[in-house]
């Protein structure tokens, strides 16, 4: 087992090669914040490997050289200590730690710096509110509320304000930035920038109850123009919406009878559940379920919300008639803002 550490750098490289596409790994940083953190991880790792090499070298030398050989009964010299050596192994670690501590302090301040010049800088502010067990993204400057998928423009500083409505959650998008907690009663800030378009996986990293492990979300980085289109479409009212899209009237009715008290679409409806304005464009359903051929996942989720997502607080609709369900699903799937 003592040799395992040698695999460490090797393992790292393998991992780097293997896990790029997921946009899930902190080892595959995609943007300045994750880069800063990855650099610190590497720096600390090199220091630690150095420490480990030194300790293991002395260790192996000692246990091989001074092992008891058959028939050996000598009594070793009872040494008390050695001042010079003790100074050495006090001072060297201190120096090593300074190499880590100083950049760390600097970067801690860099990461905490969420100040922007309101007039000049190009930035987007997002208020992220975590709920048991879903995410709400509010864009105060655009009058937009979105659920589950967080759209951001590329190459723009995203200022994130974190809040929670019930228990503590934690907002983590490993490939873009390390986490900060969503704490009830407190607002935390962080920032990030996504240089490239893509879908980045996000997770809740603070135990928040039964559904914790499925409290996933996506950060979707699009070019700034697309983002503007998205934001203005998201801000449409229901009436405007109907002018643009021909929605399934029947489905809309089912929705208004059953869902609207909790879910809002185009500014109308409750806020106990995620906003569904762009539901048809969701990357996944409920944060983790794939879109399948016959929409079985969606149907099952509406009928039995806790079956796949235990602890989910959504009310079940087991008895919704089949035709109503079909209409509802059609309606939900038609909810798009980018096309």
């Amino acid at each position, binding site marked *: 087992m003592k040799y395992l550490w040698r695999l460490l750098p090797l393992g790292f490289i393998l991992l780097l090669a293997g896990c790029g596409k997921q946009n899930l790994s902190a080892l595959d940083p995609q943007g300045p914040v994750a880069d800063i953190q990855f650099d610190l991880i590497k720096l600390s790792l090199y220091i630690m490997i150095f420490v480990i090499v030194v300790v293991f070298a002395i260790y192996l030398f000692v246990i091989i050289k001074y092992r008891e050989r058959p028939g050996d009964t000598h009594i070793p010299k009872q040494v008390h200590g050695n001042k010079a050596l003790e100074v050495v192994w006090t001072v060297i670690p201190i120096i090593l730690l300074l190499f880590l501590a100083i950049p760390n302090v600097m970067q801690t301040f860099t990461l*905490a710096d969420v100040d922007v010049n309101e007039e000049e800088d190009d930035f987007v502010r997002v208020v992220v509110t975590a709920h048991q067990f879903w995410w709400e993204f509010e864009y105060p400057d655009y009058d937009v509320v979105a659920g589950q998928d967080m759209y951001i423009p590329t190459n723009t500083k995203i200022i994130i304000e974190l809040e929670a409505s019930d228990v503590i959650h934690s907002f983590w998008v490993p490939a873009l930035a390390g986490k900060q907690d969503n*704490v009830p009663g*407190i607002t*935390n800030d962080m920032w990030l920038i996504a240089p490239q378009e893509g879908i980045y996986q996000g997770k809740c990293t603070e135990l928040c109850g039964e559904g914790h492990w499925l409290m996933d979300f996506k950060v979707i980085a699009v070019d700034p123009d697309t983002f503007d289109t998205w934001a203005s479409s998201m801000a449409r009212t229901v009436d405007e919406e109907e002018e643009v899209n021909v929605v399934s009237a029947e489905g809309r009715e089912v929705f208004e009878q059953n869902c609207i008290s909790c879910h809002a679409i185009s500014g109308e409806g409750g806020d106990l559940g995620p906003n569904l304005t762009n539901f048809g464009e969701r990357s996944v359903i409920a944060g983790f379920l794939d879109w399948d051929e016959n929409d079985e996942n969606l149907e099952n989720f509406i009928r039995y919300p806790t079956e796949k997502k235990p602890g989910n607080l959504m009310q079940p609709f087991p008895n919704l008639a089949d035709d109503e369900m079909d209409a509802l699903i059609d309606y939900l799937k038609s909810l798009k803002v980018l096309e």
Partner: protein
Amino acid sequence: MAQHGIDPTAPLTGEPTKKTKRKLAKELRTQLISFTFMIFLTTIAFISIASDAIPTGFAIPFILLLACIQVVLQLYVFMHLNERGNGWQNAMIWTGVLIAIPTVASLMLLLGIVKF
């Protein structure tokens, strides 16, 4: 050890030695003086808050200082921490105080409301 000395259940009848008596008399004097002083400190503390003459910016650190003085008096005069053979007691109490300071400070300040 216990069994080599006086029977622990037998009532003690004797008198303290002359030396002890003198020491006790002196002790009593110090204690009375510091009691008076403590009354004085307390009164000052109350007055400095009750009267509007003293600005709070000054009064609060001031009363906290007075409290600390009082506590030291209690510990050393009333509770005899100054006596010989109390090294461990001193060490432990002051370690406790040393740990209490960051405890109070962090609970007061580092609650996420104001960022430091």
